[in-house]
């Protein structure tokens, strides 16, 4: 059954979309990640214009982070004050990202920006994840549990001026690092259509030294607002949010996530992470190959003023 997407201006099989939502939802439930960094490339692979894929995916992440975040909120595992600081930076970053996106769209280079960002992030994240999980697997084989690595304290960063007390995280640190982290992740969110949890969570643990029990809840809390801001800004500046597409992806995504969570609980953590790392690396590789191999058609056409 075909459905006409009013913003992407194309017909797509409705079951393909729900199936994709389900597959990525399944993986995000299984691995405990947001899934935006897998869904956006997948949408591009099936022919959705990259600019529409990014903006629409931001809209979908609003839904998945609300449903994920509610449980943490009810368990009071959210540092609201830290979340507000992060999202202040994040919303500013999303504005900067959308403006950059708009500018490059007019120059016809936004697809390149999206692809390059993905190749860079997917290969770095995938590589780090693979190395870490392979080390963990090797350590388990040898029978010695790997000690959690604590990188050197960058305490001078946290002792910058404008310090604030974060009671929930038991921290008294400068607001400058969380503002900057928020800004960076917000920019990425606008350019790549991701929530950015896979950057935000390690940054909170290793840079801000937040206790692990509030990290995921706080990350989801601020992602809701940053992706909401990305959705609204892309709607206003680029008219690239396809609500119908977002809705169908949400339907598939929520169903998939429930099953993924069940399966994920039965599998071993390190192997699961190694598998995710391989998926991330292969998506990055595919995007990389698309960039360097000679396209069948060198020309591309858009309506004037609708670049990208």
């Amino acid at each position, binding site marked *: *059954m*075909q*459905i*006409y997407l*009013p*913003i992407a*201006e*194309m*017909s797509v099989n409705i079951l393909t979309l729900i199936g994709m939502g389900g597959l990525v939802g399944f993986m995000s439930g299984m691995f405990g990640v947001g899934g935006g960094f897998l869904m956006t490339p997948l949408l591009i692979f099936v022919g959705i214009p990259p600019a529409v894929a990014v903006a629409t995916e931001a*809209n*979908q992440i*609003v*839904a*998945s*982070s*609300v*449903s*994920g975040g*509610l*449980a943490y909120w009810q368990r009071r595992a959210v540092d609201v004050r830290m979340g507000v600081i992060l999202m202040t930076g994040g919303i500013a970053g999303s504005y900067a990202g959308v403006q950059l996106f708009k500018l490059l769209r007019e120059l*016809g*280079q936004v*697809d*390149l920006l999206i692809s*390059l960002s993905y190749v860079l992030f997917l290969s770095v994240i995938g590589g780090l994840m693979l190395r870490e999980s392979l080390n963990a697997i090797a350590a388990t084989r040898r029978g010695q549990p790997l000690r959690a690595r604590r990188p050197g304290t960058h305490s001078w960063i946290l002792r910058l001026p404008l310090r604030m007390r974060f009671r929930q995280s038991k921290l008294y640190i400068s607001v400058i690092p969380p503002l900057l982290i928020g800004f960076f992740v917000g920019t990425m969110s606008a350019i790549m259509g991701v929530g950015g949890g896979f950057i935000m969570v390690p940054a909170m643990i290793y840079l801000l030294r937040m206790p692990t029990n509030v990290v995921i809840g706080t990350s989801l809390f601020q992602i*809701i607002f940053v992706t*909401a801001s990305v*959705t*609204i*800004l*892309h*709607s*206003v500046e680029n*008219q690239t*949010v*396809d*609500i*119908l597409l*977002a*809705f169908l992806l*949400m339907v598939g995504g*929520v169903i998939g996530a*429930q099953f993924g969570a069940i399966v994920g609980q039965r599998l071993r953590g390190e192997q699961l992470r190694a598998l995710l790392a391989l998926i991330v690396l292969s998506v990055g590789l595919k995007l990389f190959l698309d*960039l*360097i*191999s*000679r*396209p069948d*058609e*060198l*020309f*591309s*056409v*858009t*309506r*004037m*003023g*609708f*670049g990208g």
Partner: protein
Amino acid sequence: MRYGRKILLVVMLTSFALAPMAARANTIIADLSKDHISIKSNFAGEKLLLFGAVEATVDGPISDIIVILRGPGENFTLRKKEKKLGVWVNNAAYDIGPLPGFYAVASTRKLSQMAPANVLREHSIGANAMSINFLSSNIEPSEQAEAIAGFIRLKQARALYAEAENGVQIIGGRLFRAEINLPSGMPVGTYVTEFFAFQNGRLVGYQTGELPVDIVGAGHILHQAAYEMPLVYGIGGVVMACFMGWGVATLFRRR
């Protein structure tokens, strides 16, 4: 409505046949199977039937008929990729237009066999006969030709430009019919239909009409809102997502 149109056609054909030869200004009359195209949310493209009748002239029966469906004119930006630092990137950009976003021509035989090239060009018959205007100046003719070929190729690949040289069938020497495929990615706006009757390379009959193409239903509301009230649209998307997320969280916790 279908019936109404059939009756209309019968009336048209009868009066056409009865009218005296000299009083007739035109030798071709035609109509479409639809008076508008509605792109609903389940739109996956459709076929449009174009039909009519031709009257023989003093030189004999007419066998050269051309049917054209032309979408609204737009300006386009055409970009060409080039390899830079090992990566294929958009390099040269050409603004061209106005050109139809959709263009289909069907005929009884090869266009070039029906009329000389200058006549075809004069009436903009065939994608190759369209005058393609470069909005930016100083472009080499060879570069222009390459860009034009690329543009037509891209449009053909999406079934937005089509030429069918045996697309018009003549039935019983008088009636004719043609089918044109409307793809799902067709642009919206007012389309123009044109019917040409040629005889010995001369234009002997011509008729033109309009065909509105619109998005309707929920898709129409979303499309309209996205472009005319983008802020409301964006906030709407966020509110919808919040409800979906909240609904799902509540639903699955109860289980």
